[in-house]
């Protein structure tokens, strides 16, 4: 029996009216979803589903928020929309929970109520210990300078949480408005999630008052805490998309005949569909189990190996199932306008998002080796 929808009729109509009809065009033109569309999604409660009721959210658990994202991924093939929802919500919650009273007043409340959109500006073309963006004290203010290589939702954001190195070498995080003098956002044209407004950020000696500091000390650990949970929520909409893709594949193949037989009756086609189905089911079971565990707060807040393994596994299944769709569809697989090639490109974003797959492999492997060494040498 199917589960009742978590989406209200208004939310369903909004997705059908404002998201689905524009997906193909926005992808083709590499144009971000309209900012007003996201603000409307926020007004309909899609952004604040997991926020506390006292700030206008729906008060749902992390698991409930993950389930909603899974459903959104299933009902719309627009991967950018779900990605932006989950990202803006994560940044808003992060600012709300960590801001000083003054920063909450100036930025946190508008973010958590979905009146402004935020983005996470961390990634540089280097490793975490060699970050170049600097935050230097200037009397009772700060000066921010440097460049961030890739920011999801950057083109749509009203403000950004920017990580930068202080003179001491420690990292801090500050909230920067796109309207602050010296802030420059350049569009990035990418292969997948092309409507997610990816941008490069340049910071030309941006002057910030002291009240904009979100995290003053050890923001590296703060970023890892943020990314830890991000990894899990990042998987949810693609997981729903996988289920939707499988249904669309079968529907697309159902009228197709070869050698006087429906292709869905071919044993090799059924075997491949069986492998795809097993991959999707395993990914669903794993993600839901991890969502439950994190909702019960039984996880490591900074680097949880179940979350890492879930993000790694779901992302790999996404690549594999989308690739299998291409193989089963023959020439149709390449047709733009059908969701298959676009979904494959969208899923490529998972290879790097919230920790590149290869880095996650190293992290899991290194932890296994170290724990094993501890067992037999101490």
């Amino acid at each position, binding site marked *: 029996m199917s589960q009742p929808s978590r989406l209200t009729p208004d939310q369903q109509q909004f997705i059908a009216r404002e998201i689905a009809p524009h997906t193909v065009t926005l992808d083709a033109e590499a144009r971000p979803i309209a900012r007003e569309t996201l603000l409307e999604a926020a007004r309909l409660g899609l952004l604040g589903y997991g926020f506390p009721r006292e700030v206008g959210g729906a008060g749902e658990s992390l698991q409930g928020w993950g389930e909603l994202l899974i459903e959104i991924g299933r009902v719309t093939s627009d991967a950018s929309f779900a990605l932006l929802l989950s990202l803006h919500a994560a940044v808003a919650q992060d600012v709300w929970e960590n801001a000083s009273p003054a920063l909450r007043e100036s930025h946190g409340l508008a973010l958590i109520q979905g009146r402004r959109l935020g983005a*996470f500006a*961390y*990634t540089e073309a280097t*490793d*975490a*210990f060699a970050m170049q963006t600097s935050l230097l004290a200037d009397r009772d203010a700060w000066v921010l300078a440097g460049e961030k290589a890739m920011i999801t939702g950057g083109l749509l954001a009203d403000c950004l949480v920017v990580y930068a190195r*202080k003179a*001491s*070498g*420690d990292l801090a995080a500050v909230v920067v408005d796109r309207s602050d003098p010296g802030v420059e956002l350049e569009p990035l044209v990418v292969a997948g999630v092309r409507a997610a407004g990816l941008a490069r950020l340049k910071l030309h000696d941006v002057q910030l008052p002291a009240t904009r500091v979100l995290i*003053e*000390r*050890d923001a*590296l*650990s703060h*970023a*890892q*805490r943020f*990314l830890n949970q*991000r990894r899990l929520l990042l998987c949810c909409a693609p997981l729903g998309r996988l289920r939707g893709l499988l249904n669309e594949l079968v529907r697309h193949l159902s009228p197709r005949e070869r050698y006087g037989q429906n292709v869905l009756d071919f044993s090799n086609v059924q075997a491949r569909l069986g492998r795809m189905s097993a991959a999707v089911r395993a990914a669903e079971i794993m993600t839901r189990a991890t969502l439950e565990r994190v909702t019960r707060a039984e996880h490591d807040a*900074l*680097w949880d190996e179940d979350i*890492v393994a879930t993000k790694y596994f779901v992302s790999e299944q996404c690549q594999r199932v989308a690739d299998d769709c291409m193989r089963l569809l023959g020439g149709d697989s390449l047709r733009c306008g059908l969701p298959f090639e676009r979904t494959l490109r969208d899923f490529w974003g998972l290879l790097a*998002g*919230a*920790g*590149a797959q290869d*880095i*996650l492999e*190293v*992290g899991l492997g*290194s*932890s296994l*080796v*170290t724990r094993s*060494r*501890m*067992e037999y*040498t*101490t």
Partner: protein
Amino acid sequence: MKVRFSGTLLRAVDYEREIELDAPTLGVAFDQLLQRFPQLRTPLLDDGGAVRSIHRLFLNREQLEPDTDLAAMNIGARDTLDVITALAGG
């Protein structure tokens, strides 16, 4: 005592996977480490001199809680401290 590093911190200790120290407390052990490997300070410690949360510390296989007073913790010659670091970008 022995201190063992893994992952990204190895570079900061010149890839010495296992370091022998003679120290009565963990605080003194960290001081000795930083004297020998000054480049370890920024990746290991924050501005206030606290070990960054991204590093998990295991003393004789027992994970130390984040609020442990490391500086005052007594250690012996046969103790082993493992420092496990895992991080990934955005």
